[in-house]
């Protein structure tokens, strides 16, 4: 007999306890009598204390001891046979998309990987415990830890590799942790082992194949010219030119078809598109890897920043007009999102969503005591701020800098303790922060407007504002990239996105941020049931498209590990049921059959 939890044998102490109770405990079952006075003069307690009497071997004592013994053995995990040592196989599957590449016989590396693992499971027998890990940037356990082979087989059937290129290092680390000292590690990939993995069998199930794939894709729109286009970068990963058919469709309708001879290596292709089309699907005819033959591209919608120049006439205003003219995506508008004003107006109330940029003497509440001063450097810049990206202020003379009160603005550029460029967030009724940027400078006397930093500063201001306009940061993404979308207001309903088979809820907020899901395709962001944005999510991984490095080999060997002590449940051992029956029957008989008899006695 084997005890899974020997400490449970401590419960056997209940047996002597029961005996002691029966030995020393005086039970007083009630008995009705007619003449109690005849008993009353009898001595109640023997002189000299309790009298040691022979233990009455009653059915109750026997049943109680039997029940205690059976329950103690159940607690101690008594079983007739050993729990057994099961071999533990940990399989790391390369989840990269290249594993799905099929050869001329229609067989993929994924199929060979599944067959190889299945063969190993068959060889090890049904008692084998299996853990299957899929590699990736975030490795995942597909089956396990330590499940039965049958469960592992169903997990293998469901497995479809589709991840972009990644290192197997993270997956290996997870697999080794799961294997510990009791498991055997097997790595399945289509690439050869870079270096021998100690204590692991590296099985390469790849096959070098020729493949043509879309390595990059971009859809653009020129509103001024009224036309759109798709720029494709095609990769032919073979030694010979390959003939392919390219089709472009939108909304289920074929927009364009073209026969291509793709030369070996990387080539580019530009396709004209009429503007206003919904998301288009660009597809190449089938080859070894289907994953890289298709992209979905959403039409980008340019985010125009409305600006208003309210500076006084003079050098400064003219310089601002020139600088804004050099920035794309800007339009003059009365209801502008970006307004350039004299700095003295910055303390006036502003409409929500309007950024103000002021030049000159700041408003009086912001000022400190002191006279304006001129500076020729050195200047201290907050280089990390997007406003000052690429700005050096080299050779710039900064005249008319008025002393500012402490904490009036957050300094972005300073000369000594004098703030030259600052930013202030102003709370609006909508409780969002619309910053005001102050240039504490006399534009009439400075050479900043003639320096190379001037158009850069203006461009940075415009781009900062553009980034804060509602809408997605970009319209087309690779799988695994962060998608950032600014809603611009509180959502009116629950937010979620839908991308092919993937559908997830999004946290409610003005700014949405999530990873572009695999396998990609058209991604729709919905607010309630209304589609707010349509984005393209595509594979676009030239490393995975290149199938010429794939090999078939086996490196290393499966080490014989200690094995996993597989604890099956107590119900698997017949002794458990026997003990349970004995214990249960003893309790039932003692309480249900003997107890009434005692009471009646």
């Amino acid at each position: 007999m084997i005890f899974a939890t020997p400490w449970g044998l401590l419960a056997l102490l209940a047996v002597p306890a029961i005996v002691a109770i029966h030995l020393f405990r005086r039970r007083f079952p009630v008995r009705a009598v007619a003449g109690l006075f005849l008993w009353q003069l009898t001595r109640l307690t023997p002189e000299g204390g309790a009298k040691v009497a022979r233990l009455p071997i009653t059915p109750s004592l026997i049943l109680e001891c039997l029940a205690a013994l059976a329950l103690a053995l159940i607690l101690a995990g008594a079983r007739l046979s050993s729990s057994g040592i099961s071999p533990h196989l940990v399989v790391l599957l390369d989840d990269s998309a290249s594993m799905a590449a099929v050869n001329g016989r229609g067989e993929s590396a994924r199929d060979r990987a599944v067959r190889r693992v299945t063969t190993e499971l068959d060889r090890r027998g049904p008692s084998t415990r299996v853990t299957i890990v899929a590699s990736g940037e975030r490795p995942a356990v597909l089956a396990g830890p330590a499940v039965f082979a049958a469960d592992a087989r169903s997990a293998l059937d469901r497995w479809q590799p589709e991840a972009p290129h990644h290192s197997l290092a993270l997956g290996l680390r997870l697999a080794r942790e799961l294997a510990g000292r009791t498991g055997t590690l097997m790595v399945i990939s289509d690439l050869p082992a870079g270096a021998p993995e100690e204590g692991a069998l590296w099985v390469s199930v790849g096959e070098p194949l020729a493949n043509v794939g879309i390595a990059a894709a971009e859809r653009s729109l020129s509103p001024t010219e009224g036309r759109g286009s798709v720029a494709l970068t095609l990769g032919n990963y073979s030694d010979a030119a390959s003939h392919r058919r390219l089709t472009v469709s939108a909304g289920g309708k074929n927009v364009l078809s073209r026969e291509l001879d793709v030369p070996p290596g990387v080539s580019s292709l530009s396709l004209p598109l009429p503007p206003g089309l919904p998301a288009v699907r660009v597809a190449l005819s089938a080859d070894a890897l289907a994953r890289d033959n298709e992209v979905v591209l959403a039409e980008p919608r340019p985010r125009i920043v409305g600006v208003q120049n309210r500076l006084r006439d003079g050098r400064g205003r003219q310089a601002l007009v020139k600088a804004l003219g050099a920035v794309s995506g800007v339009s003059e508008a009365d209801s502008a999102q970006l307004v350039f004003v004299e700095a003295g107006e910055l303390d006036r109330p502003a409409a929500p969503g309007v950024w103000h940029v002021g030049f000159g003497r700041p408003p009086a509440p912001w000022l400190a005591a002191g006279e304006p001063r001129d500076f020729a450097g050195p200047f201290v810049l907050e280089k990390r701020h997007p406003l000052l990206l690429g700005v050096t202020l080299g050779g710039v003379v900064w005249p008319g800098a008025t002393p500012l009160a402490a904490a009036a603005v957050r300094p972005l550029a300073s000369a000594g303790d004098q703030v030259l460029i600052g930013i202030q967030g102003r709370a609006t009724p909508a409780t969002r922060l619309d910053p005001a940027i102050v240039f504490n400078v006399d534009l009439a006397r400075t050479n900043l407007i003639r320096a190379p930093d001037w158009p850069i500063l203006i461009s940075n201001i415009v781009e900062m504002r553009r980034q804060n306009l509602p809408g997605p940061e970009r319209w087309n993404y690779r799988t695994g990239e962060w998608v950032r979308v600014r809603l611009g207001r509180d959502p009116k309903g629950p937010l979620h996105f839908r991308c092919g088979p993937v559908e997830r809820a999004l946290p409610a907020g003005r700014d949405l941020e999530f990873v572009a899901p695999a396998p990609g395709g058209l991604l729709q962001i919905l607010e309630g049931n209304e589609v707010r944005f349509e984005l393209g999510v595509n594979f676009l991984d030239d490393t995975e498209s290149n199938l010429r490095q794939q090999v078939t080999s086996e490196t290393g060997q499966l080490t014989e590990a200690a094995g996993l002590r597989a604890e099956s449940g107590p119900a698997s051992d017949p002794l458990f049921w026997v003990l349970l029956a004995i214990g249960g029957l003893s309790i039932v008989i003692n309480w249900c059959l003997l107890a009434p008899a005692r009471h009646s006695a």
Partner: protein
Amino acid sequence: VPAPLIDWRVVRAAAAFRLAIPRTPLGGLVGERLGSGSGSSLEFQDYRPYAPGDDLRHVDWAAYARSELLAIRLFREEVAPRIDLVLDISRSMVVTEQKLRAYGELSGVLACACASTVADSRIITTGSVEPQPLRVPEDVERFLLCDAPLSALEETHLPLRRRSLRVVISDFLFPHDADLLVSRLARDSAWLALVQLTLREEAEPAAEGSRRLVDVEGRGHLDLVLDDAVIQAYRARFSRLRMGLSTAARRAGASFAHVVAGTPIREVARGLAAAGVLDPA
């Protein structure tokens, strides 16, 4: 439907007895038994001198002719005896079903014996209630509810009639002085019979281990280990109680019988006859 308390068919089959009435003259109403005084029966008893006012029909004229003395012939009085059947209806008489049934059968047998004796029979269960007539033996069954907290024998006054035949049925399992109790019952009686009914385990209990003994008449409880020593002590006390009753009965000229519940009723009747309580009819 609960079984009847007394199986009268069995009781009547066993009740071929009557009370063992003494030969001494009895008191009572005019009846068929010879009374203790002079009466109007045909049996000559004695002479006495004539006194003015005597019924001249009773003058013995023959004796006057012989002796010239007026003498009155006295005849024995014929009486119907009075029977007081005292039943203990305390809860101790029904401490078990067996004792209740034995009590019923015993009462039935004695009621039959009373009925076979032409007498004025009454049943006394307590001093506070008027005695009830016993016309037919079945009348006794109405009194066997046995829910009184005390035995009638513990009461200071019982409505016993003078010169009556008295039959007392009880277990006598209450604290008492046997001499006092029996002399009180026998006072002014023509005849007294004491019948003690107990269970076998009341007379001869066995060692049962620990028990909480609860008095059915609410006299408290007692936690006891019924071992051999305790049982021996109890048996001695019970024996002294029974012997005390027996001795006191002898002193008072009464009959005493001890009946153990569970004994077949025929044997009970024979035992009562052997003890002088009953006579074969």
